[in-house]
């Protein structure tokens, strides 16, 4: 049996929307097979079909040569298929053990036999080199360990075929290396792996073959050793892709943002920002690089007035805005593209038009003496929709909810840029967007900078930070560890900094320390 899994001609629809159209994927025993496609191309859908969460409208699935119908995850489990989800499927206040045994609990006289379970898990973790603390609660362990728990879930049920869905999204470069080792170990122990991803470098590093999907259609399968990132990118997007963003040199002038010795606590009273210093000047883009959870959220919240500052100062255009209210800070010249567009950026149940007015509804021309002028709101919304190419079903009267992620983000960016802020904070501005939208957004950010505005970019994607920023500030454990220029560093070095290792070379660094 050459192929351990065959998905032949799979078609999956969601109420008229075709997520997978006649896709074929074949997994050889003992190989690592990558499934490549942009966000929304249909990769996760295909794997959810394999895992039994969805039923296909057409097509056939064969496991070890036999045709099967995978009606739910239990059937998939029985066939030896296990899934390591991108967004971990872990119950936060359960322990590691409880999460792993859920649904297949060993019992003794009707009671869950936790001891037996913990022992079995310990044995498994040693066999595959997956270090976990069996009695810890999920909410208390690191992201890396959480992922290992996800992997153990599949192994506990005897999975032979493992599907990894975007496994490196929240990992440091070092943790990614560790994960690749784990995957190779699993192959040694006789497993076969499908890895869903849109990260071309990782595909080249780890996979044997690649199947590419674009907009729900299967494009083809290639042998990794016979291709390269440019070819893969072209197949993924359908046209030639440049990864470097065009930009001229920066011409920074005076300071806009000045953060001095900032200290910020979390709700438990623990210091999350520890005497942080940062400046951003007009005419430059400063990118903050760092692993999720090192204080980026708290920093942005402190600057924008959403979180209390324990000590230190924040100055905007020379004015002290420490602990001022969000609206006051916004009025001093701040624009903010929030990291969670659904939570902070938009009111999804408002129309686009009403969302455009979110920051300025209380000012003329949108209102006068507490009476709203929705006509003006519509006018401005139409203008922004046009300028920023926001696509929707009913124009400015569409509910924000009905727009795609990329268009929602364009609407937010349009709103913020139109207000002409001196400082634009862009937090994870391209998260979950496709290549086209990403290019567009990067262009606009650079445009702002060229207009003489300041941009503060926060991102978890090293590529983005290196491409777009004029200066890179690495944040680790609540402090700015170092500030470097993109052309004087590389991913390896940044990765080390992000993990907390100070720079070895003491090269000249423009800016502050």
């Amino acid at each position, binding site marked *: 049996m050459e192929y351990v899994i065959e998905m032949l001609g799979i078609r999956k629809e969601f109420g008229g929307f075709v997520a997978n159209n006649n896709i074929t994927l074949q997994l050889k025993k003992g190989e690592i097979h990558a499934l490549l496609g942009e966000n929304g191309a249909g990769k996760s859908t295909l794997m959810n079909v394999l895992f039994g969460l969805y039923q296909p409208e057409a097509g056939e699935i064969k496991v070890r040569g036999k045709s099967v119908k995978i009606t739910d995850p239990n059937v998939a489990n029985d066939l030896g298929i296990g899934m390591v*989800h991108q967004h971990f499927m872990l119950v936060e206040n359960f322990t590691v053990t409880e999460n792993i045994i859920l649904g297949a609990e060993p019992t003794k006289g009707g009671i869950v036999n936790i001891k037996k379970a913990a022992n079995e898990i310990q044995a498994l973790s040693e066999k595959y080199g997956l270090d976990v603390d069996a009695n810890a609660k999920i909410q208390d362990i690191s992201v890396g360990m959480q992922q290992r728990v996800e992997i153990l879930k599949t192994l506990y049920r005897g999975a032979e075929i493992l599907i990894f869905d975007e496994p490196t999204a929240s990992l440091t470069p070092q943790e990614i290396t560790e994960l690749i080792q784990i995957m190779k170990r699993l192959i040694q122990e006789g497993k076969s792996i499908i890895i869903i991803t849109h990260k071309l470098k990782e595909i080249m590093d780890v996979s044997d073959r690649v199947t590419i999907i674009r907009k729900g259609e299967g494009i083809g399968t290639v042998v990794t050793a016979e291709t390269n990132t440019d070819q893969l990118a072209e197949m993924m997007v359908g046209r030639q892709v440049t990864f470097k963003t065009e930009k001229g040199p920066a011409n920074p002038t005076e300071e806009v943002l000045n953060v001095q010795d900032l200290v910020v606590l979390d709700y438990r009273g623990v210091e999350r920002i520890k005497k942080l210093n940062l400046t951003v000047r007009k005419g430059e883009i400063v990118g903050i690089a760092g692993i999720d959870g090192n204080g980026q959220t708290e920093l942005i919240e402190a600057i924008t007035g959403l979180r209390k500052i324990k000590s230190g100062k924040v100055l905007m255009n020379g004015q002290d805005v420490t602990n001022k209210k969000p609206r006051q800070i916004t009025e001093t010249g701040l624009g903010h593209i929030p990291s969670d567009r659904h939570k902070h950026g938009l009111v999804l149940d408002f129309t686009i038009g009403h969302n455009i007015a979110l920051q300025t509804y209380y000012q003329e021309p949108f209102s006068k003496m507490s009476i709203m002028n929705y006509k003006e709101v519509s006018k401005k919304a139409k203008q922004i929709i046009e300028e920023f190419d926001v696509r929707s079903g009913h124009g400015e009267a569409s509910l924000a909810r009905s727009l795609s992620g990329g268009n929602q983000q364009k609407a937010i960016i349009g709103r913020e840029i139109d207000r002409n802020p001196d400082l634009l904070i862009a937090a994870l501005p391209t998260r979950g967007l496709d290549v086209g939208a990403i290019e567009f957004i990067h262009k606009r950010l650079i445009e702002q900078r060229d207009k003489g505005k300041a941009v503060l970019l926060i991102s978890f994607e090293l590529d983005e930070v290196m491409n777009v920023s004029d200066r890179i500030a690495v944040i680790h454990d609540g402090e700015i560890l170092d500030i470097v220029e993109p052309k004087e560093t590389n991913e390896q070095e940044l990765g080390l900094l992000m993990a907390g290792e100070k720079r070895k070379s003491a090269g000249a660094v423009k800016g502050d320390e």
Partner: protein
Amino acid sequence: MSFLDVLYFIIPSAIFYAAPLILAAIGAVFSERSGVVNIGVEGIMVIGAFVGIVFNLFTVDVFGDFTPWASLLAALVIGAVFSLFLAIPAISLRADQTVTGVALNLLGAAVALFSVKLIFDKGQTEFITERFARFDIPGLASIPVLGPMFFHNVYGTSILAIVVAIVAWFVIYKTPFGLRLRAVGEHPMAADTMGINVARMRYIGVMISGALAGVGGAVYSLTITNNFSHATISGQGFMAIAAMIFGKWHPLGTMGAALFFGLAQALSIVGGSIPYVQDIPNVFLLILPYVLTIIALAGFIGKANAPKASGIPYIKGQR
């Protein structure tokens, strides 16, 4: 009356008034733990109270001594069936759980009273003749001080309530069923990927809450009022929900909270016979349980966390 006399008087009443609350509250715990908010407990208690009395009145010749217990059984079944009015819209039809719960309250009260008028031609039922027996717990009743307070002249239903609470704790925290139930309430998608049928677990959770609320209502009417009218159940269902929140969704904590509310209720009703208490204007005693509930919620709620997925319909395929 000495302080000890007051205790001898008030504690048995407190336990006695708490028993229906304990049962309904434990039921609510099952429902909420599975992720379904059940505001309709009041309505199911009304139905339970009604079924308890009517079943008793009509089958007293058939079951004799056993009649009250048989009535509880009837209330249990009818309560579980009635809870489908919440379960089906909330779980399978994606209805808003709070709205559906409110409608359930309206429906329960209306159906019960409609049936009373239909059967008896007036707004209330007769009084039952076959009541629950009270007895002393052998051995324990002779303990000095505590004996007469807790183990003397006790209703079987009070013991039932406490046993149910303990069994519930065991089931929820020690059995596979309990683990899966909690998973479904915290992270239904995770449970789904582990092969657990989320809808089925939620149906079970809601029907258990219906069954227990029915029994709770029946215990109330069969031990406290001995008949049924529109005024029989007035807020006990909501107090049960408050007890659940106060008890942080934990069966034993819930039982404790329910006992506390039972004490408040008892004070409001028999307080007139206790020195000091009888000098307090009646209105304060009447509102005491409700005010205590609010204070409990305001004071403690900061740290209490409802099951994460509680109140949100689970839709397969949503990303």
